[in-house]
């Protein structure tokens, strides 16, 4: 029995490597579970335990790497809910192995960083518990082989993010985001940690509900949640397509990803999520939470592409355009925001828009693997530089004690290491040509869009290029405002009060230095890495999904086979990429680094000022959200509830209660407490049973 299970799980046989795939996600959960107990032993021990479990998980992830290089996958399953034949399992394949390593190692670095950043916090036990829980849930999403387990991880991530965003639930003013007192359309534009946590939880829950619906629609037709099983027998897809349910189900599933990855229209929670401690922001933005959505799309992408014959192209179109819109929307908002973490947050949403765009375009193009690999490459490089940037921003916050960039300035001399490594990571974000990972991944996306053969590829490309220029601009703006120019008044006052502006400790700067260097190193050899990824993923896709050689479906015009995508550098894409960087970077340099132009000029012209206000107030989306989804429904709810409660609940419930209580009294009246009565009933009972038997 148990033996059978073990054998099924491949633990006994020599599919031994699968055990690491189990360990990767079980270890953080186990660590989280024992943290409260270990905390009783001692604070040091507790912190080391957290680090230790994160490391163990990361090493388990690393042990899977050979499998990725072999380009194959292992499917290890055990019985879970046998009643409806649902199995639990892990499915390490090249995609998930790379992802799991990214998650594991970046979170390990973040955990190290936390030992410095969170030092002395009174609730550190809770912090470690939720961090490990967070990592475990994310790894569950990455490695599991079926949608149901993914959903469990998904909810776990949601829960942990709620707990971590609202970690400082005692709502001190310094932990807020937004400028206090700022209102747009009557809605407060600032948020306390507990409010932000709740907002993130509810908004992602909207996505989760859609995902659940999509999942079960597919389950009803296919009878399985497993990715492999869905691929093997595609009769369900035909049936669903026949009833016009396939694309809606797929889009609903994508709704979950939209919520988690903070894509338009569920993007608003991401900004308030900055109330969490900075390592949490780094974790949410670099490796876990928001990447979960992208990963889900990447996981189901090939499957749905294999189903392209059933009209799945519509789904990919939705994905691509949602990505493009988000990328643009959030980039415009990033340009005007004064808070460093929020700029980074906008940028995350925008960059994830790129990834979605790439994954969407993959499904719309001849060569699925180009877009797919580009999106995935972008995910990798973004994970590295964004984690680095967040940790760097955290170092600034730690030293300065203010979240506003207007309170910084001129910090370059005081925080040398932070400056250098943040600059390196920023270059990657801004996609500085040829030497940064960001450049190569973004260029791959451009090329993929251009070569896709999708009918509306050009508008998409246009959006992508504009966003790239804006990205370069706000990146330089951020660096300029924080590190260049004169010290702000705030800093001067601080120094007068005797505060010394100092560099952070090594357990904080080393983690983000490692990542910053890694992103540049990747960039230097980017021309090799890109094609490598394409090769591996391509081989894997051909082998396991049968994607890559043949033309998938009608409705996609066939473009001639393009030139080499990566180092062969599609000329148009490369030119656009260079140009966008140049424009953005130069503008940013002039205004914020060299400080030749005062940014105040926009407030002098009424048009530019209106635009600025529009962008600053986040296109009034937050206002709409609150009026439409919170205040309005609450009012309606109150009205309905008043009538409902007074008439129906008050009417039915007591009647039922009294009836039941009456019967209960009858039963209890028989229970007289007198043994003889009981024995009499027993005797009568014997007679009754015997008579019933003989009847």
């Amino acid at each position: 029995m148990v033996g059978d299970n073990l054998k099924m799980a491949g633990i006994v046989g020599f599919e031994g490597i699968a055990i690491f795939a189990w360990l990767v996600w079980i270890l953080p959960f186990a660590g989280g579970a024992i943290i409260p107990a270990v905390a009783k032993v001692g604070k040091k021990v507790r912190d080391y335990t957290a680090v230790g479990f994160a490391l163990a998980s990361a090493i388990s992830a690393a042990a899977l790497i050979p499998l990725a290089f072999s380009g194959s996958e292992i499917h290890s399953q055990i019985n879970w809910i046998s009643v409806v034949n649902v199995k639990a399992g892990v499915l390490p394949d090249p995609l998930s192995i790379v992802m799991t390593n990214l998650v594991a190692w970046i979170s390990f670095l973040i955990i190290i960083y936390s030992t410095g950043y969170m030092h002395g916090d009174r609730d550190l036990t809770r912090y470690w518990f939720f961090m490990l829980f967070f990592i475990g849930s994310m790894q569950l999403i990455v490695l599991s082989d079926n949608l149901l387990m993914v959903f469990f991880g998904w909810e776990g991530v949601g829960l942990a993010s709620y707990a971590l965003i609202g970690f400082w639930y005692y709502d001190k003013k310094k932990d807020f985001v937004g400028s206090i007192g700022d209102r747009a359309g009557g809605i407060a534009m600032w948020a306390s940690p507990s409010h932000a946590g709740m907002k993130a939880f509810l908004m992602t829950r909207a996505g989760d509900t859609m995902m659940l619906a999509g999942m079960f629609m597919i389950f009803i037709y296919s009878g399985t949640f497993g990715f492999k099983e869905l691929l093997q027998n595609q009769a369900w897809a035909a049936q669903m397509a026949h009833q016009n349910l396939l694309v809606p189900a797929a889009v609903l599933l994508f709704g979950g990803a939209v919520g988690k990855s903070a894509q338009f229209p569920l993007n608003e929670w991401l900004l308030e999520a900055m109330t969490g401690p900075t390592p949490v922001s780094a974790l949410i933005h670099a490796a876990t939470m928001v990447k979960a959505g992208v990963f889900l799309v990447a996981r189901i992408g090939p499957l749905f592409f294999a189903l392209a014959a059933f009209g799945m192209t519509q789904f990919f179109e939705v994905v691509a355009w949602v990505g493009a819109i988000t990328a643009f929307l959030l980039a415009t908002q990033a340009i005007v925001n004064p808070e460093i973490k929020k700029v980074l947050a906008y940028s995350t949403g925008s960059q994830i828009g790129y990834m979605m765009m790439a994954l969407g375009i993959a499904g719309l193009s001849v060569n699925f693997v180009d877009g797919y690999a580009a999106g995935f490459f972008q995910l990798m490089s973004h994970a590295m530089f964004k984690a680095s940037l967040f940790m760097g921003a955290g170092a600034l916050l730690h030293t300065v004690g203010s979240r506003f960039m207007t309170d910084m300035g001129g910090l370059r001399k005081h925080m040398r290491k932070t400056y250098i490594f943040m600059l390196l990571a920023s270059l990657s974000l801004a996609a500085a040509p040829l030497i940064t990972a960001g450049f190569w991944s973004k260029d791959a996306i451009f090329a993929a869009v251009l070569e896709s053969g999708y009918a509306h590829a050009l508008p998409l490309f246009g959006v992508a290029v504009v966003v790239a220029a804006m990205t370069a601009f706000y990146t330089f703006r951020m660096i300029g405002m924080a590190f260049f120019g004169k010290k702000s008044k705030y800093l001067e006052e601080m120094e007068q009060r005797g505060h010394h502006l100092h560099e952070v400790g090594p357990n904080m700067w080393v983690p983000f230095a490692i990542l910053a260097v890694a992103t540049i190193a990747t960039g230097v050899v980017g021309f090799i890495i890109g094609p490598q990824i394409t090769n591996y993923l391509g081989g894997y896709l051909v082998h396991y999904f049968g994607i890559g050689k043949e033309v998938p479906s009608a409705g996609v015009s066939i473009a001639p086979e393009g030139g080499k995508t990566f180092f062969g550098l599609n000329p148009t894409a490369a030119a656009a990429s260079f140009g966008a960087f140049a424009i953005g970077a130069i503008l940013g340099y002039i205004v914020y680094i060299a400080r030749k132009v005062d940014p105040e000029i926009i407030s002098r012209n009424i048009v530019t000022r209106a635009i600025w206000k529009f962008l600053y107030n986040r296109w009034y989306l937050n206002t709409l959200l609150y009026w439409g989804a919170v205040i309005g429904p609450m009012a309606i709810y109150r009205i309905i509830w008043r009538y409902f409660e007074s008439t129906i609940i008050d009417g039915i419930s007591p009647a039922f209660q009294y009836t039941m209580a009456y019967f209960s009294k009858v039963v209890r009246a028989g229970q007289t407490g007198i043994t003889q009565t009981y024995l009499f009933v027993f005797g009568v009972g014997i007679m009754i049973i015997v008579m019933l038997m003989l009847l």
Partner: protein
Amino acid sequence: MADLISTPLIVTLILGVVGLAIPIIDAFKKERGSNNRLYSGIAFGALIITIGFVIFRVLSGEVMPAVLFSKGVLTDDLFGSFFAIALLIVSIMVTASSWNYMKGRINPAAYYSLILLSSIGMVLIAYSTDLVMLLVAWELMSIPTYALAAFSKRDPISNEAAIKYFMFGALSSAILVFAIGLVYGITGTTNIGSSIQAMASLQKGLVPVGLLAIGLFIAGFGFKMGLVPFHMWLPDAYEGAPTTIGALLAAGTKKAGFAAALRVIVLGMFALNVDWTVTLAIVAVFTMTLGNLGALIQKSVPRILAYSSIAQAGYILIGIALAPYSNQALTGSLFHILNHAVMKSAGFIAAAAVAATLASYSLEKYRGLGRRMPITAIAFSISLLALAGVPPLNGFWSKLVLFGAAINSGSVVAWGPYLAIAGVLNSALSLGYYAWIIRKMYMEEGPDMSKVKEPRAMVAVLVFAMVFMVGFGVWHAPILQFASKAVPHLSNIVPTGSNHLSNIVPSSKTLHDF
């Protein structure tokens, strides 16, 4: 005679030797009364070794698959092992929590010794294949519990409970002797297997006697199981007995009653070619309804738990009533038996923990317990929710299997689905009082909200139970598999053709046919 290294004999040996050694050690000790921890430790160790041995035997695959016939008085099969594991878990939980409960109470040596002896009885019931062995094991289980129920000698309640329990117990065991005598008289043997074979080809004139015997068996075992006309003693005894012993009675001896019933009643009735399932179905519906109604407006927590265990017996009986029609139903019963053993003992032990610290069983004392005794409160809540069958706890799955089987049986017996409906309605009804307790613990504030120290051993036991309930709720496959393997294949009992029921037994119905 059974194999010398068979599981039941080894279990008897280990527990018997330790059980008898404890009072002997006590007799030689100079100072009296303060050795609670020592004896608790010894008893706990012995039980752990025993359960380890049973599990080892099961895993090593040397245990026979569930068989019905054995030439000896004991068999070493999976059915027995399943019950042995369930019952030993209960004994372990009770012993471990008694570490706190018995603190400062008199005569711990006898207490633990009696628990161990009673455990042997419970386990042997599950393994026995002979009616004489069954009766002797039954008495070995019962007699120590009479004494245990009366163990709080200064407490009139405990004594009252013991008297009620004893009177019923002695009566039912005499009735069992009578019933066994009848079976022996008409079949000429006391071996269950042989007598069932003999019953299957019974001379027509003797069938009424056979049925009378089965009816008396139902009465005799039904008393322990808490089936409805025989249930009256149960709330009083469970409430009055020391609370840990309440756990032993509700979770342990009750389950042993089911083991005996499965071995004897179901098989015997099978052999008799008479449609008896309706009788059990009616009893099942009455049992669960009456249990839930009785629990609805009680003030004492152990009493609520006692009524709830009557109701749960009703659910389990669904599976037994449907046994001829689907193996899945019996699987569900076994699964629910194991789950209920853990859930109910967790409930009683939580009540014992509260009683040990706050010195009250009254529900009013539970107000604000969520803050006063957080671990106890959460464990208690989880066990209540599991009892109510809230997903994803383990109680949900066993009820799902049971009710599912009842619905599936609709193709064979028209009244099958009604049992499922009755079960679901009753679960909803039961949620009423379970939720009420939880509400008291978390939503209401008592006059005293200060935090109190929770008894450590009980907390450990409760944590174990929580892990069990949640863990096997999330991943119930192993237990379900074990249960489905432990179910005896009833279709093999009777030589084919001689029995009209054998035609409708789906011999290879698996759970996946849902």
